[in-house]
């Protein structure tokens, strides 16, 4: 079973209204590379054109935040939950 990307409400319009999208990959980078092929409009909400995670995007793999840790090199097992959230910021 592929990893499941779980989306916040604000991004579901980039995934035909779905809350979850299955994308193959053994690392977060591979998952997002797959997403770039599958749903490019969604992928660029998460990463800029250099391939870096956007500053105010949070990603949790199986409940553990990737920021300040392995980031895009974070291993992603089959069936993992890749949870995306907007950082609490702005005004």
């Amino acid at each position: 079973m592929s990893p499941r990307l779980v989306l916040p409400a604000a991004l579901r319009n980039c995934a035909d209204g779905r809350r979850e999208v299955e994308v193959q990959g053994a690392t977060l980078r591979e998952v997002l590379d797959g997403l770039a092929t599958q749903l490019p409009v969604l992928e660029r909400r998460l990463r800029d054109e250099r391939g870096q995670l956007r500053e105010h995007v949070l990603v949790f793999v199986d409940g553990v935040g990737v920021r300040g840790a392995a980031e895009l090199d974070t291993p992603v097992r089959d069936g993992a939950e890749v949870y995306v959230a907007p950082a609490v910021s702005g005004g």
Partner: protein
Amino acid sequence: MAQTILMIGTRKGLVMARDRDHRQSWNLDPIQFANNEVYAVAIDSRRDPPRLFAGVVSPHWGPVLVHSDDLGRTWTEPEQAAIAFPEATDTALIRVWQIQPAPDNQPDVVYAGVEPHAVFRSDDGGVRFRLIEGLWKHPHRPEWTPGAGGACLHTVLPHPTDPRKVLVAMSAAGVYRTSDGGETWQPANTGIEVVWRPEGQRRPEFGQCVHKVATHPARPERLYAQNHFGVYRSDNGGDSWEAIESGLPSNFGFPMVVHPQRPATIFSFPLQADAERMPPGARCRVYRSDDAGDSWQTFAAGLPDDPYYAAVLRDAMCADSGDPAGIYFGTRVGDVFATVDGGDAWAQVGSHLPDVLSLRAAVVP
């Protein structure tokens, strides 16, 4: 029946205004792209129907350029990003500051000015843009600094008849021109002072903090510039500039608009510079010159009488394509005003909107 539309880009979304009765009153659509900054809007009236553009920045999900072929009711985001830096630049787009359709003789060409300092060009009507490498690789680039708003290329002025000529303006790098279709670019700031530099170093080749440049297609050699300290005119396409601020209460401000039917008539909204950045005397006033900046008149009828502290940003003033032309401006407290008689009388289009960043208007079929 022809209608005038006004795109109001704000710090928290886009509001479309549509006139009801010959621009005397307006219907405002509900806000779109809520909580997204809309720094750049454009109407490409060369197409039928006109194509609308909006540069939209989400604080979380980044910048996108979208377009609408139904006058702003629905929007399309191309599957491939309309504007993205090539991989070799190792740079990411921060925001789109300007979307500028080219003149009629280049029907599918659209330019975009962005942050960080760069200009992009589309040859397919604004679906896909490519970086103009000549400016990106300019040897001056390491010395260009950001203005307070960022390292923005905020003005693109394609020459009305010669497609090889384009002028751009950047904060705080100055004005640059190309006459070979973007291969090479030369600074064009002679005569513009940089007053915050030490004495003797105030006329640099580049590094001016230009806020806006405007021109009229019938007189492309004549340019008007609002700078961070200084209002200027060039009568030779930017070879040199002379001050035209005599008669204005302040030489600081952001917008500069040329009347679409009167090339010597220009509009300004001065601000008490630059520590205050409020209208001088807290009076909401538009200044107009009918002699290319040699003298200025003040216009206030229909504008607020109460003390007014809000600024008008560089793209928050515009003209429409009507006859007589409508002139519009929006403020950072979300008021939008319009005049159809050149400024003698102003009427409110909207109020209590989020702070206004960008306006564009056109008469559409």
